């Protein structure tokens, strides 16, 4: 049996487990690692004497440290009440118009998901939206769905905003500022087009003015800790911005910030560790090994050569194709494996069709981030949003999701496509 066939079958098997959610994604990925190791040793891709060393060489420690550091830092900072404080302060400044508050919360979702994981930002904003909707006695369904859609827009802004961004930048050497300069205009453009449509959709909400009588400081338990968290958070962001001058791996800045927050925060570290999404970390590490197996067994080479042959007629379409392939796949499969599989494929294709990896990778980033909102299961923030609504007795099915979110997400993907074409034209 051909080694490429065996490794393709392993990959298909893991993809089936991920799509059907037969097992937790980290368990499915770990199973993939086990199969990769066993068949890798049998077919001579790995030597059994040097196995651990070879496996470790497949994992990118910079990305793993970055992910773990950002997760710990975000969790520790969120516990100080910084994000709730920001949301309540904005609600207080805006006043009692529910439509305006809703819109500001939707925009805040973008800002929060820039720094936090989509899940954390959806939980914070979702809980605040529900409590305000109760005060105003309105149905929060459309607002929560809009927030879920906008979390992935926030994921476009910074290199640290989502895991696909981190993976792609680590492979293609895209810097923090370069990422921001390229992606921020797209996030703004998408928000500028999406927000008015959302505003029209939520226009039917009451305009009755309620006095918002909440002091934002009530959500902050310890002001000293709050200021220290803001300080560490700002230092890490500055570290990311000036990474090119500091000449330090981005993963070290992230993990350094997390350690500083743990030391200065004085919070119980065990409880912070327990809230970190270790499943995602295991998943990420496991997928490095699975993709490494695919690379060693020449599966990616064969696939890339075929794709490159197809693209040789129109190399300029490669980025556009990336957006839609990534976007549509992210609707059903986690965007991490898609990104991790496509990046080495793009590295090979770029050599064949003569287009730089960087320009190809923007398509992957935008597709992987935005496509998750195409279905209710495409992104964890969607599942959280539906969970929040279900808790309030509002059952949102696939039909309602498609009716409300699908047009918005398709429009976002079309804007991203136009933007990628624009980028390729100006470069």
């Amino acid at each position, binding site marked *: *049996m051909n080694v490429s066939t*065996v490794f393709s*079958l*392993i990959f*298909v*098997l893991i993809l*089936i*487990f991920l*799509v*059907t959610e*037969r097992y937790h994604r980290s368990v499915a990925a770990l199973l993939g690692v086990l*199969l990769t190791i*066993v*068949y890798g040793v*049998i077919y001579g891709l790995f030597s059994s004497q040097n196995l651990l060393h070879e496996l470790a060489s497949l994992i990118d420690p910079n990305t793993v440290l970055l992910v773990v550091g950002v997760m710990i830092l975000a969790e520790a900072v969120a516990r100080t009440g910084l994000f709730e404080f920001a949301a309540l302060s904005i609600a207080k400044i805006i006043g009692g118009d529910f439509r305006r508050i809703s819109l500001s919360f939707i925009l805040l979702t973008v800002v929060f998901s820039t720094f936090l994981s989509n899940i954390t930002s959806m939980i914070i904003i979702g809980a605040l939206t529900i409590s305000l909707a109760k005060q105003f006695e309105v149905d929060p369904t459309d607002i929560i769905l809009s927030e879920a859609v906008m979390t992935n827009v926030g994921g476009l802004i910074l290199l640290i905003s989502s895991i696909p961004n981190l993976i792609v930048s680590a492979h293609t050497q895209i810097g923090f500022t370069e990422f921001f300069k390229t992606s921020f205009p797209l996030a703004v453009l998408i928000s500028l087009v999406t927000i008015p449509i959302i505003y029209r959709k939520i226009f039917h909400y009451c305009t009755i003015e309620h006095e918002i009588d909440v002091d934002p400081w009530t959500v902050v338990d310890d002001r000293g800790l709050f200021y220290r968290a803001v300080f560490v958070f700002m230092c890490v962001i500055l570290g990311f911005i000036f990474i090119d001058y500091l000449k330090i791996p981005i993963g070290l800045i992230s993990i350094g910030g997390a350690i500083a927050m743990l030391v200065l925060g004085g919070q119980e570290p065990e409880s912070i560790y327990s809230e970190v999404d270790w499943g995602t970390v295991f998943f990420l590490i496991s997928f490095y090994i699975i993709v490494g197996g695919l690379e060693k067994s020449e599966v990616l080479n064969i696939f890339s050569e075929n794709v490159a042959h197809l693209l040789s007629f129109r190399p300029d379409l490669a980025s556009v194709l990336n957006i839609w392939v990534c976007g549509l796949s992210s609707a059903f499969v986690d965007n991490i494996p898609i990104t991790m599989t496509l990046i080495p494929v793009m590295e090979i294709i770029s050599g064949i069709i003569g287009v730089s990896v960087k320009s190809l990778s923007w398509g992957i980033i935008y597709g992987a981030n935005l496509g998750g909102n195409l279905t209710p299961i495409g992104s964890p923030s969607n599942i959280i949003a539906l969970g929040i609504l279900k808790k309030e007795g509002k059952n949102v099915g696939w039909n309602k999701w498609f009716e409300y979110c699908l047009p918005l997400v398709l429009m976002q993907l079309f804007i991203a496509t136009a933007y990628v074409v624009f980028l390729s034209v100006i470069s």
Partner: protein
Amino acid sequence: MSYNSNFIREKVFRFFKYLLILLFIVFFLRVLERQSSFIQFQVLDYMVTDKLIIRIIATMFFIYYGYFVLVDLKLFIDLLNQYTAKTLGYNESNKIKNIAYSVAAIISLFLASLLVLPFVSSLPTYGNLIASYLNLAFLAIVFIIIYNISNEVYSLAKDKIDETIDEISKQITREISSRTKKSEEK
């Protein structure tokens, strides 16, 4: 559908009974066929021989008992199918997911056979024999799973076709009733 043990026992007994009868009759008629060459007559343009008569009788027996054997065999495959569905964690409501589980099971079996068969066949004396039996067992399980997939695909297609037919018939009924109303108004 679940069956009780008495029913299954009855079916197993009937299956073997009819299978043995069928084998016996076929064997008996084959022996008879070899020995016979006595009768030969013409009906219209056709030459009828005793061999032909025996073959026709054999075919009739084959159809009669073969039918019962096949019916029971289908029942056993269905039972195996149910057991496989239960093992694979099938969900009544999501047929596409069930098909995906089946494909995953086939891939897993294939990978397992790649791992196990070379090891077993390298065993001394009976290694090759055991490996060929194991191979057959893998193939049998794959057959059951493919049967499972076909069942799911059939029911999926059937549901969709039923829905479409219902929708078309509703539209036709609506159209006819609106036309009748219009003609009555005229």
